[in-house]
């Protein structure tokens, strides 16, 4: 099978539906294909995509002159297509993709809040990211909206967000948050329950909205990379990499090969640190503190090494536009190889213990089930998707170095419960370790061992797409540069956009006290979603 061999079929179907594709480009947003269509065909193009079982992977808007340009991402077999259309900026209105792709729900509401786009047949007209810091009718990402906005002296709580009531004998509601009991991010959850089982969960997010898309505008490449590294701190390497990839493509360059390999190493380090930390936390949520302590210890050792190698325990700001800030010499490579072997052995013996603990099995097996159909409908990637049959892993799609030269099997299952999500993460610890050993070999085989950075040429007006598989799943990052080569538009789609709605489905029928472990097994990023 060759790349994009399905695209001609999609184009033919569009033609049958009288959808006119005005122009297509394989270059503008490479490796994605860009297709420009009319706004009135927006819904039809998605419905053809849905019939062909394409995956929907995100949408962003961009104000250009007085138009609102919408771009939606579709994926099939690791090939990306971007549908694009322009709306008049006055009263932008367009068909919604949500009736076809429920995962589009909140992203479209985000655009309604931020740009004032009306999605005509959207099933949910409530605001999403907007709380009370700006007024209805104001749209922060429109060019005329100042960065400082016009916030009230004190921003009140968003107390009147409409939440559907529930009635019936013995039915009750538990509102939780935004401030939670633990050391975690803020968000509001409203449980509707009868007895112990949860009948319905309503998430209300947006509490840590920091205006990232707005304050990105006008930054230079280095400034954007720093900001991207703070979209979701636990994914700082992955998000920075995605933004840098978008910037590099917008500027028409590729980073040196050694830089890509080092990025790969850092990214796999980040994956392992988070997987191990979360495996401990999942066990802790069902009272198995032993695992939490063991995992925290492993994670701490791992982070200390990251700190020694990169100067930062979480490896922030090490990936930069054009390359990386650190090189690895032979001594560092030898140390890492020993580390990998040690962790492989420690993790194996620890996971063996976890794997046959009856008390863990009792709490984690069959808890928090997500069906493959729902995962597919929502577009869940990462371990949430993989545990429910979605073989989405950009590292296997031949999209970016160093993974173009590496092979591994995606950990996959259809069992879809908490135990499976944890199991996928255990497997990924080992596959990451293997990949990292391969990367160390690649570093050793290089003849030029100094080339880790290339200056970004200025390319006014360029645009680029970043596609990176972070530990949570697929990250899509978009950058457009202005006439001076500064950022005109930046958007990053964290995988959490699709796993948060999955959590609402996952908890149904589970008992309220199992919410924490269900939540931890998904571990959506609040900050990455709220942006």
């Amino acid at each position, binding site marked *: 099978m060759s790349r994009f061999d399905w695209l001609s079929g999609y184009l033919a179907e569009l033609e049958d539906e009288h959808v006119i594709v005005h122009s297509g480009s394989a270059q503008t947003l490479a490796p994605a294909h860009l297709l420009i269509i009319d706004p009135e065909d927006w819904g039809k193009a998605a419905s053809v995509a849905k019939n062909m079982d394409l995956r929907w992977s995100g949408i962003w808007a961009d104000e250009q002159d007085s138009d609102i340009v919408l771009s939606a991402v579709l994926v099939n077999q690791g090939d990306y297509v971007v549908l694009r259309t322009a709306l008049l900026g006055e009263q932008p209105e367009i068909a919604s993709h949500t009736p076809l792709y429920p995962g589009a729900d909140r992203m479209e509401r985000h655009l309604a809040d931020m740009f004032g786009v009306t999605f005509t047949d959207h099933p949910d007209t409530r605001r999403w990211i907007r709380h009370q810091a700006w007024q209805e009718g104001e749209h922060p990402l429109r060019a005329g909206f100042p960065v400082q906005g016009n916030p009230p002296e004190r921003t009140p*709580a968003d107390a009147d967000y409409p939440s559907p009531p529930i009635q019936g004998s013995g039915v009750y509601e538990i509102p939780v948050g*935004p401030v939670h*009991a633990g050391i975690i991010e*803020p968000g509001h959850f409203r449980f509707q329950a009868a007895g112990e089982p949860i009948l319905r969960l309503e998430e209300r997010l*947006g509490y*840590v909205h*920091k*205006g990232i898309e707005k*304050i990105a505008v006008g930054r230079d490449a280095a400034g954007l990379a720093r900001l991207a590294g703070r979209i979701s701190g636990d994914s700082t390497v992955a998000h920075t990499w995605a933004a840098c990839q978008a910037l590099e493509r917008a500027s028409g360059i590729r980073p040196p090969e050694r830089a890509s390999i080092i990025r790969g190493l850092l990214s796999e380090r980040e994956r392992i640190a988070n997987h191990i930390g979360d495996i401990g936390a999942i066990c802790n949520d069902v009272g198995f503190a032993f695992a939490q302590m063991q995992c925290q*210890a492993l994670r701490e050792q791992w982070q200390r090494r990251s700190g020694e190698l990169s100067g930062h325990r979480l490896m922030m700001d090490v990936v930069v536009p054009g390359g990386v800030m650190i090189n690895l010499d032979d001594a560092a490579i030898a140390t890492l190889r020993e580390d990998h072997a040690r962790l492989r052995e420690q993790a194996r013996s620890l996971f063996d213990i976890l794997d046959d603990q009856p008390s863990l099995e009792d709490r984690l097996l069959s808890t928090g089930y997500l069906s493959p159909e729902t995962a597919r409908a929502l577009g869940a990637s990462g371990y949430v998707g993989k545990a429910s049959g979605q073989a989405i892993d950009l590292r296997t799609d031949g999209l970016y170095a160093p993974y173009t030269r590496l092979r591994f099997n995606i950990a996959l299952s259809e069992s879809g419960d908490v135990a499976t999500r944890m199991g996928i993460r255990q497997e990924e610890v080992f596959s990451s370790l293997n990949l990292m050993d391969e990367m160390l070999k690649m570093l050793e085989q290089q003849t030029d061992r100094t080339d880790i950075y290339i200056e970004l040429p200025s390319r006014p007006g360029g645009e680029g797409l970043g596609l990176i598989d972070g530990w949570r799943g697929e990250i899509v990052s978009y950058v457009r540069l202005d006439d001076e080569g500064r950022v005109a538009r930046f958007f990053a789609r964290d995988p959490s956009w699709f796993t948060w709605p999955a959590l609402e489905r996952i908890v149904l029928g589970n008992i309220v006290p199992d919410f924490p472990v269900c939540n931890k097994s998904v571990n959506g990023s609040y900050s990455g979603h709220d942006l």
Partner: protein
Amino acid sequence: MMRILNRIYRTGTLTEQGLDLRDPEIEALGRELKTHIDARFDGSLAIREVDAGSCNACELEIHAVNGPYYDIERFGVHFVASPRHADVLLVTGPVSRHMETALRRTWQAMGKPRFVIASGDCACSGGEFGVSYASCGAVRNVIPVDLQIPGCPPSPIELMKGILALMQGTNAP
């Protein structure tokens, strides 16, 4: 069960001897912290952490400070679930406007005397996010702050140093 016991035995105690042997200053601060907490807070200092808009990396390091390597509890510092039980509010992130009221209410729910630590560059100055339509910037723009811990994020050692410094500067309640 034997495997668990065996692993616990082999892992041993990981808590750093006096935190960091290379830094006797911290060991001294640690001892002093314990003395302060014993004298003024009857042996235990309760901290309520609030993420007011952080990128979540600050939280990762606060988790680490509670982990087996640092184990801040042995100095009498523990993290509590309710602001009503807390002596100290540890705030991370720039204060997002959407969290402004929640933060203020959490602070108001605390008994007095109460102390506020702004932890991380964002909490100290607004950091990478500054002040905007979405962000109030530094924590002190919203509630009074007693101590600031810079860093992005502050490492566990820096967090411990910060809490110790607050205790040193704190007047007896």
